[in-house]
């Protein structure tokens, strides 16, 4: 652990010292021992604040969409495997230039669910990490300029806990049952748009809900407006979501957004053999087509 931190600090220090980057985004200790928070390091003397642990839950790629952060030009960023996929997707979609970022990848062996960590959970295990960690194939980031190994023990996945089990459950339901499930979920929505803000891939400078000529999405925070918002958010992320789970974590009313995102990711893979964020040279799935695409639903 301490070793990981030292390596991170050294890399950040060197990058800043040589002027290769003007900002390093990483993690530092948070408001309690079981929390980490983002750190923005612009001076070498601050590099010592950098750290990484099993509580480093945030996807730092989200900051690359902020105009204030873009101003820094060349940026070094600390990423876990899942977050790095967000970087790939951003590069694929020409939001970030590969030349402008230095990717400091860290090996990650699972992140403890924040609500459990807040209650004092300290052990990384199948039962305490996020579902995304259980299906993770990228414990080591795919693409990086620097790699920092993790001192954390490997995550053992026995298969006893089924990640995103609720998806199959819902798939087996009738439309009415599915509807009543989502009706309850969307009823909770307060349209704070935290799901959008926390998403590294929701980078439109003006979101569809902020346009009112015409008003596509009802503004109310009731059934109709909430359902439309959640539907269109999920659609815009279909085939793009890399599964970092930040939307669901941010949601203050616990709507299981990752269920929808993961379902769409699975369907996109099934239909078009595409997984988001794996290859910076691949074309985004809805930017291309194949003549032999799935046609069964069309008369």
């Amino acid at each position, binding site marked *: 652990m301490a070793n990981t931190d030292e390596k991170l600090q050294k890399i950040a220090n060197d990058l800043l010292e040589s002027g290769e980057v003007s900002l390093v985004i990483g993690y530092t200790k948070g408001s309690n021992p079981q929390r980490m928070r983002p750190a923005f390091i612009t001076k070498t003397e601050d590099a010592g604040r950098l750290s990484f642990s099993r509580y480093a839950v945030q996807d730092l790629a989200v900051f690359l969409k902020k105009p204030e952060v873009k101003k820094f030009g060349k940026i070094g960023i600390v990423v876990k495997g899942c977050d790095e996929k967000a970087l790939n997707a951003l590069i694929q979609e020409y939001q970030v230039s590969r030349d402008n970022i230095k990717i400091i990848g860290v090996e990650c062996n699972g992140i403890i669910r924040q609500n459990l960590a807040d209650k004092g959970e300290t052990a990384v295990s199948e039962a305490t990490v996020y579902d995304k960690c259980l299906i993770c194939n990228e414990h080591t980031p795919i693409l990086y300029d620097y790699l920092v190994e993790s001192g954390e023990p490997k995550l053992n996945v026995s298969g006893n806990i089924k990640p995103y089990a609720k998806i199959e459950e*819902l*798939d087996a339901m009738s*439309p*009415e*049952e*599915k*509807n*009543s*499930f*989502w*009706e309850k979920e*969307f009823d909770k929505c307060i349209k704070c748009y935290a799901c959008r803000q926390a998403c590294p891939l929701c980078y439109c400078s003006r979101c*569809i809900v902020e346009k009112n000529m015409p008003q*596509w999405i*009802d503004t109310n925070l009731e*059934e*109709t407006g909430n*359902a*439309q918002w*959640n*539907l*269109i958010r*999920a*659609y815009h992320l*279909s*085939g793009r979501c890399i599964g970092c789970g930040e939307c669901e974590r941010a949601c203050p009313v616990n709507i299981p957004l990752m269920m*929808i995102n993961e*379902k*769409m990711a699975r*369907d*996109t893979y099934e*239909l*078009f053999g595409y997984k988001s964020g794996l290859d910076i040279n691949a074309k985004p*799935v*809805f930017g291309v*087509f*194949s*003549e032999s*695409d*799935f*046609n069964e*639903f*069309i*008369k």
Partner: protein
Amino acid sequence: MEDKKEGTVKSEGNNVSDPRIIAFVCNWCTYSGADLAGTSRMKYSDNVRVIKLPCSGRIDPLFIIEAFKKGAKGVLVSGCHPGDCHYISGNYHSRRKYAAFRDLLGFLGVDLNRIEFSWISASEGNKWVSVINEFTDKIKSLNDNSSDIFKK
């Protein structure tokens, strides 16, 4: 039911025996196909309202949401057959989009019988008539009491 004159707008579209159906069609194929049906004096269900767009690739899923929001019981999306797109690839893109969008609607509990997709060329007036009639019958047979995310 009162007698209604042919060719007049008579449907409020909000009851199950007389549902409103919105068809989003492309300018080059399906619209011409519908036009052919009309000029050939073929009859088809007058529950449908046709909205013409340049290409099926232009039919944004938001349009479908909007149609349902405003009370449509069914929505049809129709364009040129694969390979025939006036803009070469618009319908291929739209097919990909709609494969995903349809899945999403289904997952969120929308009855997929309420949304239909078809390829209808400029010469297929017959197909237009049968697609519209079959779709209208299907919508009429649905249980109107079921609710989904577009209905209160």
